[in-house]
């Protein structure tokens, strides 16, 4: 552990803080301490739960002052967070896998009530069969409900984005909850060197939470969420829609301010672009596949291939304009989903579907190839990523949009492409073969 004092580039501001070797979950916990979060509700499920263990330890040791509630279910956990937020407390929740889905109802109302609760989703495969490993389907379940969604790649990004998340979510122009997704095990429990800032710049970056005239207090006798019915629900939905669209600008503004205050952070708030300057091919992914994706790009570049990697950071709001300008002049693009959407367009994953839709209005589009990899926590190697680039090149060389989804790293008969493409061994009655 070292204490660092350095000058933020271009600003002259002295940035205090210290470097620590901590996990992704610990990094979020440090951010929560710096943010002086008021109410946290936890319920056990691996792997997100380490953040709650870390926070409760800090509270027990007097490093943090907050009410920590061990809830009796995720549904209660999220309702506790929602109601605490309504009273004016800065609230934090989190979950993984089916736990996140158990509290789905509470998640939906948190968003529709426009309460800026922040959640950590330690991405985990959904049951059944049980698996602890990462899949992104858990957090993606709320993608249509008004939650801001972000996928981080490193512990440092986890800490920084937690600060950013509260700043954006609590902005009066936004007032939406935000779920920070972190690949289970690969990031929740792996240690990185993380620069932990001092509280002072954090309080400058994130002003106190102020609900204004929506604060639930005896001095402000309001009725919250009365029955709207067909009279007004559509207008309420439209307000949430407007807030989500405004979030794009607020995210840009907050990211620029993060630079000013902390002297670091990405240039592009939405997409992490790696070696894209003269790229003809690119891979797209979310979360920790970025690490191996970038490694594969380095190897392929050494062999003269013009390939880059794009990591989608904010999934909601979706970086439509950024991806359009980054992708429109490429030859071929492989989208690597660590999730699935059975029966969807191209029988591919959620990210592919979104990227394809984003590119549709472009007059000139790259060949877009869907991939599914790393489900249930299966490792995605740099070799896998190289294979994905090769397949993308082959499909592109054929000169037509082939949207057959490729599953990478599948074993047994399921590995055979004909397994999915061929006729069912027991066709439904009346179906011609």
């Amino acid at each position, binding site marked *: 552990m070292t204490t660092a004092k350095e000058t933020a580039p271009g600003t002259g501001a002295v940035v205090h803080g210290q470097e620590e070797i901590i996990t992704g979950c610990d990094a979020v916990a440090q951010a929560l301490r710096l943010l002086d979060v008021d109410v946290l509700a936890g319920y056990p499920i691996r792997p997100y739960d380490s953040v709650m263990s870390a926070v409760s330890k800090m509270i027990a040791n007097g490093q943090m002052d907050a009410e920590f509630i061990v809830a009796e279910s995720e549904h209660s956990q999220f309702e506790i967070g929602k109601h605490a937020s309504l009273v004016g407390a800065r609230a934090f929740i989190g979950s993984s896998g089916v736990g996140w889905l158990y509290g789905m109802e509470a998640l939906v109302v948190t968003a529709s009530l426009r309460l800026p609760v922040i959640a950590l989703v330690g991405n985990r495969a959904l049951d059944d069969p049980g698996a602890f490993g990462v899949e992104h389907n858990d957090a993606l379940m709320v993608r249509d409900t008004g939650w801001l969604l972000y996928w981080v790649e490193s512990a440092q990004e986890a800490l920084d984005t937690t600060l950013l998340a509260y700043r954006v979510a609590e902005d009066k122009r936004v007032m939406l909850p935000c779920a920070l997704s972190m690949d289970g095990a690969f990031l929740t429990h792996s240690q990185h060197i993380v620069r932990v800032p001092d509280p002072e710049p954090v309080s400058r970056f994130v002003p106190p939470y102020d609900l204004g005239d929506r604060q639930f207090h005896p001095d402000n*006798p309001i009725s919250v969420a009365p029955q709207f019915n067909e009279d007004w629900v559509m207008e309420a939905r439209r307000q949430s829609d407007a807030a989500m669209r405004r979030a794009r600008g607020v995210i840009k503004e907050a990211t620029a301010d993060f630079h000013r205050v902390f002297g670091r952070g990405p240039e592009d708030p939405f997409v992490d672009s790696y070696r894209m300057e003269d790229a003809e091919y690119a891979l797209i992914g979310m979360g920790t596949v970025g690490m191996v994706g970038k490694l594969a790009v380095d190897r392929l570049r050494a062999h003269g291939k013009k390939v880059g990697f794009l990591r989608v950071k904010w999934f909601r709001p979706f970086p439509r304009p950024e991806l359009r300008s980054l992708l429109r002049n490429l030859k071929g693009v492989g989208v690597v989903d660590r999730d699935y959407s059975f029966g969807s367009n191209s029988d591919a994953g959620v990210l592919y579907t979104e990227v394809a839709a984003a590119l549709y209005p472009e007059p000139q589009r790259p060949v877009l190839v869907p991939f599914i990899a790393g489900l249930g926590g299966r490792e995605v190697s740099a070799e896998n990523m190289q294979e994905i680039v090769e397949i993308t090149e082959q499909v592109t060389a054929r000169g037509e949009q082939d949207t057959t989804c490729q599953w990478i790293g599948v074993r047994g008969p399921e590995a055979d492409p004909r397994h999915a493409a061929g006729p069912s061994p027991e066709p439904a009655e009346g179906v011609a073969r």
Partner: protein
Amino acid sequence: MAAPELIVPDLEINRRLTVLPMQEYYASGHRTCQGCESALVMRYMAKVAGPRTLVTGTTGCMYVANTSYNSTPWVLPWAHTQLGSAGSSAIGTAAALKVLMRKGKIADERINVIAFCSDGGGGDMGLATLSAAMQDTRYNLLILLYDNESYANTDIQASGMTPWGAVTAFTPSGKVRRITHHRWKKNVPALLMAGHPTGRYFANTSSGFGMDLMEKVRTALDVGGPTFVQTHDPCPKGWDYDPRMSHELAVMAVECGITVLWDCLEGELRYQGLTKQQVEGKVRRRPVADYLRRQGRFDHFADEDLDFFQSRIDEMWEDWILPGVLRIKQTPLGRLPTSSAHPQASAHGPEAAAARGHRD
């Protein structure tokens, strides 16, 4: 946010209510049914809670029929919470108040936190949250369960607190099966009291006994900590009777010994009013048929159904050590003397029903 003038007499020293405030904190604006007793319960509750109170309420009649947009009856701050979330909304609200006061982010004062729920929301779906709320002694909160004995705003479906045999949208009486609601009503206040030694106050009351109800709400708020009050609220729509009879039915349920007026403050069980006189053998219980026969939901009852119902009620008065509260007949220490009170010699004992080979 300007603080309104505090216009309620200091009720902290007035647990046995002798002065009631004129002010109403649950006023016009709701669109509940004619004869709705639960709306009356809300009014009683708000009146004695006073203006320094935050109320959350689950989905149910007291949401859907109560609070239409632009037409709220709540003078107090009120917030909707999800059907199974009474306990969690109370904990979240109370925890936020506590930490914000501790950090000086809001003024440090006594603010009541009340979460109300229905028999479906509290007794069925949200029971685990009530349990969690009764455990968390860090917070002052009151859960009020208004029991109108069905999911009454949806379409009158059976809940775990619908009386045995009652007709509901999901438990009709048919040509082959006369009775299709097979569950005996669960006793939520007793179940919470028995399992949560940290809960400071548990009470069962009735919309027909306004003073009893208000005293229990006030006692709960005064003692603080986790507290629970349940009210028995006749429902003309769900029970199928003339709305004019709501109050009479609430009283009759107590007269028959079906609803039991009791509370338990810091582990001390007490009976109130008519119930107390029944326990002491000063008043005889009315036959339950008087109560059941006045409601359409029991129209299909045959004599043997009435006998069975009576036998169950008799059992809870004659064989339980704590009459009408906890189904304990015998302990390793033998029977306790409190069970000696037999207010009515009944010809409908449980053994008699068993001998008749009663089947539900």
